[in-house]
């Protein structure tokens, strides 16, 4: 319990720190959303000045941070100048879409990487293992951007998958089942890009972790007892190799989030990525801060999940936190 509380405290510290850091960076920013208005002859300078005063752009940094903090506690997270609404509802929709994408690809990537990595570790140094290593090396050297664009070119030329957006035009008129199918067909391309980009790293780590355990004396003993191969690998070797992999799981969420930012933009998936880019170009600062915070929240959440899993999987951690 102490362990979990400590992790929660750590997560809160990270969120607060990142929001402060983000505000510190905003003070470096030259110009605000209202700067372009000043160039417009139809808008009086007094109007711009009034708007600046209304949104508190001119106030000193700590004051702005505190007022933003109170608005965040009210569930608003500041105000978007471009959308003329509070930031949180804007971000929530986009964050949901990003989550749909990243959760699916995380699960899929791990579902592929675990068996493949174990399979490869069992044949360490033999031909299939080396072939797979080469395969992952090739995937690893193709950058995300090239991968996403390549998939897009492929999809456009074959016309097999929808290329962009997350729903067809007639989405609203579809039955629930067909809606799900429509969503799935739109997800194929971005999920494929994300899975391919994270797969090589995962496979390599699973392979290394399991190969380490396979040499352990207790497994040799288990082999000697005549325990069937599948049980041996999945019931004996995998739990023993789980610790670094669970930490990697938290880490892989961060990798996928970074990857999805780019892939969402390339494949015009309406997630946090395109919104962030748009608001950077428009100098819509609170949306940028909100987007960055949401991404941190996901990452911290993923790490927290990994901590929970670790707590559940590793009795050593449970007993340690009990005694301390």
């Amino acid at each position, binding site marked *: 319990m102490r362990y979990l509380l400590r992790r929660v405290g750590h997560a809160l510290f990270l969120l607060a720190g990142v929001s402060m*850091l983000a505000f510190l*960076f905003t003070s470096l920013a*030259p110009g605000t959303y209202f700067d372009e208005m000043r160039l417009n002859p139809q808008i009086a300078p007094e109007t711009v000045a009034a708007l600046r005063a209304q949104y508190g752009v001119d106030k000193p940094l700590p004051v702005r941070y505190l007022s933003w903090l109170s608005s965040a506690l009210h569930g608003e997270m500041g105000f978007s100048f471009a959308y003329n609404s509070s930031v949180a509802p804007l971000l929530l929709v986009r964050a949901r879409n990003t989550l749909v994408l990243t959760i699916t690809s995380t699960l899929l990537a791990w579902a592929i990487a675990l068996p493949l990595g174990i399979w490869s570790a069992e044949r360490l140094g033999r031909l299939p293992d080396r072939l797979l290593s080469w395969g992952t090396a090739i995937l690893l050297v193709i950058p995300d951007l090239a991968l996403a664009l390549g998939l*897009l070119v492929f999809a456009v030329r074959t016309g097999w998958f929808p290329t962009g957006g997350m729903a067809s035009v007639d989405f609203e008129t579809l039955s629930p089942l067909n809606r799900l199918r429509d969503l799935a067909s739109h997800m194929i391309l971005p999920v494929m890009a994300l899975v391919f980009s994270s797969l090589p790293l995962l496979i390599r780590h699973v392979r290394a972790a399991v190969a380490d355990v396979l040499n352990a004396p207790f497994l040799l003993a288990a082999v000697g007892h005549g325990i069937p191969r599948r049980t041996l690998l999945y019931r004996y070797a995998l739990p023993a190799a789980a610790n670094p992999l669970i930490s990697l799981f938290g880490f892989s969420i961060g990798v996928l989030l970074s990857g999805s930012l780019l892939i969402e933009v390339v494949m015009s998936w309406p997630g946090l990525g395109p919104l962030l880019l748009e608001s950077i170009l428009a100098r819509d600062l609170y949306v*940028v*801060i909100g987007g960055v915070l949401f991404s*941190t929240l996901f990452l911290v959440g993923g790490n927290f999940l990994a901590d929970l899993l670790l707590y559940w999987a590793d009795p050593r951690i449970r007993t340690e936190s009990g005694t301390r």
Partner: protein
Amino acid sequence: MKARRTIGKWLVTLAVLHGIVVCAGFFAPYDPGEQDRKSPYLPPMRLHLLDSRGNLHARPFVYSLKLRDGSYGQYEEDTAEPHPLKFFLRGSHYRLLGFLPGQTHFFAAENARIYLLGTDAYGRDQLSRLLFGGQVSLLAGLLGAGITLLIGLCIGAVAGYYRGWTDSLLMRLAELFLALPWLYLLFAIRAFLPLAVSPLKAFFLIIAVIGMVGWARPARLVRGVVLSAKERDFVRAARGFGATNAYLLRRHILPETSSVLLTQAAILIPQYVLAEMTLSFLGLGVPEPVPSWGNLLSSLQQYSVLVSYWWMYLPALAMAPFFLGYLGLAGSLQERGEAYKIETRSLGNLA
């Protein structure tokens, strides 16, 4: 021993690849800004050995492309006259490394223009732009990694050597930087800097941004090395002889971090090249007309280009060999580091 040989192999590969990009003026047939206004979006020309009459040529040649009759933007090969590939021809002027003037190009064709990777919307040679773009992207990666390692080294050394509250403060800060997905962090910092600037300014801006983002991981690694190096016997002995902090750091402790820094460099450089590509691709980085690997691809954001001009995608594959080189180098450096660690550990046990 084996690790050292593989390191050498990867270093040579990387040196060759970088050499090609550094000598882009020589290897590229044209100037990256030179327009052939009559042929926008020309598809890549094929190298032939057999001509249309079935004769075998010793020297590879290309056919120039002409508009298909009655079409717009559809090209076909003009098989009337083959244009053989000639090496070391004189062509447009360039300056190697920015100061060595030259006019000889590795290859070109006489009396015809040759586009092995096609042309872009303005009729500029994609191959030349790819080679010159590599200069921008790779330099950004190298300088960015240099800045990151410098920051990481300073912060890690200070944190590890002086410990106490400086250490905890700096390491908390590093945790914050690690808590952000790095592409988001890159975007966030870029967001708060001016957007519309000249290419040169944009280039340095990007290097600074990229360099600032990644310091946390090298700093933590350096701190770890410094922590252990500080307690080694020869360092204690030197302190006992009255060595100052600055001397100890410079002479005994920082040299210990070189292997960590080298490995980190091999990991960071390709990552930072990719960061430059991403920013430029999205229009937040080096702007036109200066080519970079990122903005070469940015035309692919238009659906029409994606559908009709697939060869605009080819530059995306150009960085794969570079990434492979750096990946291999990082791998063998890590291997060497581990072998070294095992060696020293067993030596320690003996003693």
